[in-house]
């Protein structure tokens, strides 16, 4: 805990400071036309702040430094597709889940040898270490090549230096949509589901307030609307299959 | 207690008085026990083999090297080096009494000739710049370089550089002028111009201590000649005594080798 009440501090300042990457499309990025920060996570954060009755202020920070920023009180919460896992639960105050996503396997369009996780065994898969999809690929027996981000993973895939990359369906779909790239396809699902949450400092009383706000956004349909705007489907509920 | 008297003292016979001066660098004893006096307006020439300690004597007089023992008095300033520690103030007071002309001139390369001369008076002695410049131009006339005031050192010949070095030392109005082999780095044709300036200064009554191998200069200009060997003054006297009729074998050999290198 960071001493006093975070919620009180946010309320009295009238501002919720949100750490986000700003270079992670379609979740948190700059609109090329207006240069405004936008994206799914950005809008979710805004909606949460609205419910809390405060303004939102985004602090753009690279992923590597984003939790250092949270800990050193540069901002109050991280809204940037933070995936829930037990280690993180131990270190940070995590909200309830606001997005579910499925793992998918992306391959070259002309490669039909991989259709399921099982087929990854012994093959090369490019993974960003900061996502937990690396874990999934490794567990499936893939030879994991570490990369900085999704773009580099796709580049290696297209240069035939790896055979696949396991990632969030949302990320792959957005890539295909924004680049029109026909060289890459979704070859199969992993069957994993990951849960994205808002992170705050450990023990922060903001978690409860954010959870309440998220519940309200879910019930009044705001989250669903945002999801459909960015992904064409509702990813704010737990998938059934 | 160290003694540093800067108040006027009664007139004495000598301007410089050195006694029991000793100096070692690490284990290596360079000066053993040097005693000599310099009368005001006189020229003292120091000769001796390489490594005998000539430069160290001059540097001790100027306090560039701090002696280990002995006393040095120049004018009204006296420092007893046996009393430790010798303070910065004492060093500065002693140094201010004399001007030094180096073998390798050490002019400030980034300053013009005039700026070289005014650096001491203006930057260190805080004298008025205009006045210092006027005086500097006079000094340049004295050394025959009036028209070079705005040149940079690299634009001068070796002999001219050395003459600027002399003028720079004079510019701080020292009581005593020290010269360390001022002509030995010069082209033989240029030696004359520097020796002539020094001869003029002597004629004008400047007190000078000169290390040189120019035996002829010593013969013509010196009032006393000191022959140094192994950190000790082994002969002293008039030029005639020391140069023409040396008493020691060492001095005889040395003079012979300089005057007749081919024998």
């Amino acid at each position: 805990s960071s001493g006093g009440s975070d919620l009180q501090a946010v309320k009295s300042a009238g501002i919720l400071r949100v750490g986000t990457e700003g270079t992670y499309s379609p979740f948190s990025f700059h609109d090329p036309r207006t240069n405004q920060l936008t994206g799914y996570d950005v809008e979710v954060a805004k909606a949460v702040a609205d419910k809390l009755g405060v303004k939102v202020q985004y602090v753009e920070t690279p992923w590597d430094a984003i939790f250092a920023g949270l800990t050193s009180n540069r901002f109050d919460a991280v809204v940037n597709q933070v995936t829930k896992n037990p280690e993180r639960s131990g270190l940070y105050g995590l909200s309830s889940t606001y997005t579910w996503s499925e793992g998918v396997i992306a391959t070259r369009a002309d490669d039909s040898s991989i259709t399921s996780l099982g087929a990854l065994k012994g093959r090369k898969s490019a993974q960003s270490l900061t996502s937990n999809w690396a874990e999934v690929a490794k567990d499936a027996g893939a030879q994991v090549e570490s990369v900085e981000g999704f773009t580099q993973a796709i580049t290696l895939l297209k240069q035939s230096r790896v055979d696949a990359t396991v990632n969030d369906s949302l990320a792959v779909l957005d890539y295909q949509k924004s680049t029109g790239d026909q060289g890459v396809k979704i070859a199969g699902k992993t069957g994993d589901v990951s849960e994205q949450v808002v992170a705050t400092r450990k023990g922060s009383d903001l978690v409860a307030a954010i959870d309440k706000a998220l519940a309200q956004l879910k019930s009044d349909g705001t989250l669903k609307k945002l999801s459909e705007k960015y992904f064409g489907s509702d990813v704010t509920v737990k998938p059934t299959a | 207690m160290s003694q540093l008297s800067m108040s006027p003292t009664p007139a004495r016979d000598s301007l410089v008085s050195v006694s029991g001066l000793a100096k070692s660098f690490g284990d290596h004893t360079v000066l053993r026990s040097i005693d000599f006096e310099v009368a005001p307006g006189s020229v003292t020439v120091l000769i001796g083999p390489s490594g005998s300690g000539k430069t160290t004597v001059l540097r001790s007089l100027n306090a560039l090297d701090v002696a280990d023992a002995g006393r040095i008095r120049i004018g009204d300033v006296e420092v007893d080096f046996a009393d430790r520690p010798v303070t910065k103030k004492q060093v500065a007071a002693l140094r201010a009494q004399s001007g030094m002309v180096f073998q390798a001139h050490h002019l400030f390369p980034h300053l013009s000739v005039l700026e070289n001369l005014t650096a001491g008076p203006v930057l260190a002695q805080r004298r008025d710049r205009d006045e210092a410049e006027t005086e500097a131009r006079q000094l340049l006339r004295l050394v025959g370089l009036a028209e070079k005031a705005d040149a940079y050192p690299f634009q001068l010949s070796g002999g001219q550089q050395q003459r600027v070095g002399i003028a720079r030392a004079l510019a701080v109005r020292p009581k005593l002028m020290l010269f360390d082999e001022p002509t030995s780095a010069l082209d033989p044709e240029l030696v004359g111009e520097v020796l002539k300036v020094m001869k003029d200064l002597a004629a004008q009554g400047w007190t000078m201590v000169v290390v040189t191998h120019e035996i002829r200069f010593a013969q013509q200009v010196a009032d006393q000649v000191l022959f140094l060997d192994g950190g000790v003054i082994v002969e002293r006297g008039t030029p005639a005594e020391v140069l023409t009729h040396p008493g020691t074998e060492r001095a005889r050999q040395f003079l012979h080798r300089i005057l007749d290198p081919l024998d």
Partner: protein
Amino acid sequence: MNEQTTQLILDSLGPLLRATVTSTIPLTIISFVLGLVVALGVALMRLSKVRVVSGIARVYISVIRGTPLLLQLFIIFYGLPALGVQFDPFPAAVIAFTLNVGGYAAEVIRSAILSVPKGQWEAASTVGMGYATTLRRVVLPQAARTAIPPLSNTLISLVKDTSLASTIQVTELLRVAQEAAAPTYQFFALYGVAAVYYWVVCLALSFGQSGLERRQNRYVAA
């Protein structure tokens, strides 16, 4: 290169230029000038005969040169708040880069000072100058000649190192390139544009260096 990429690059030219002029260049210049001041102090400490003083300077230089700049930035921006000292991004970046330049340039300045012949110190002291005056009026002007080429290396490295400031929320050139690239995944193209900007800045600085060197050489024979 397809049309879309070309358009993206063209669109980015303006914003990247703005970031260069309003952020990368000021950050570089301010940090460098302050860094030189620190470096001079550290160099003089390192030359001190008092062992404790020169020891402190040694450790400072060793730590600064021995650890990644990124970490130095992180400690100042994310670490110091734990001790109750909090800086905004730009000042934090200036502090980190200043201290970094201070460590690197200290060694350059020290060796430049040592390259001035001892005779110059002695000549200055014979005409009555003290330590400070000699340093300021005699030694440093001459040391500058030796120091300019390696210092310009430090400066040129700094230009590129300022890109690390993006990690502590300073919106400089590389950050703007990343922002422009994110929606379209064209990181490669936009990094290329950024590289050209960096190169142009470095070229301009190299010309500046040549000019300075020529000026410094006016008092030595050709």
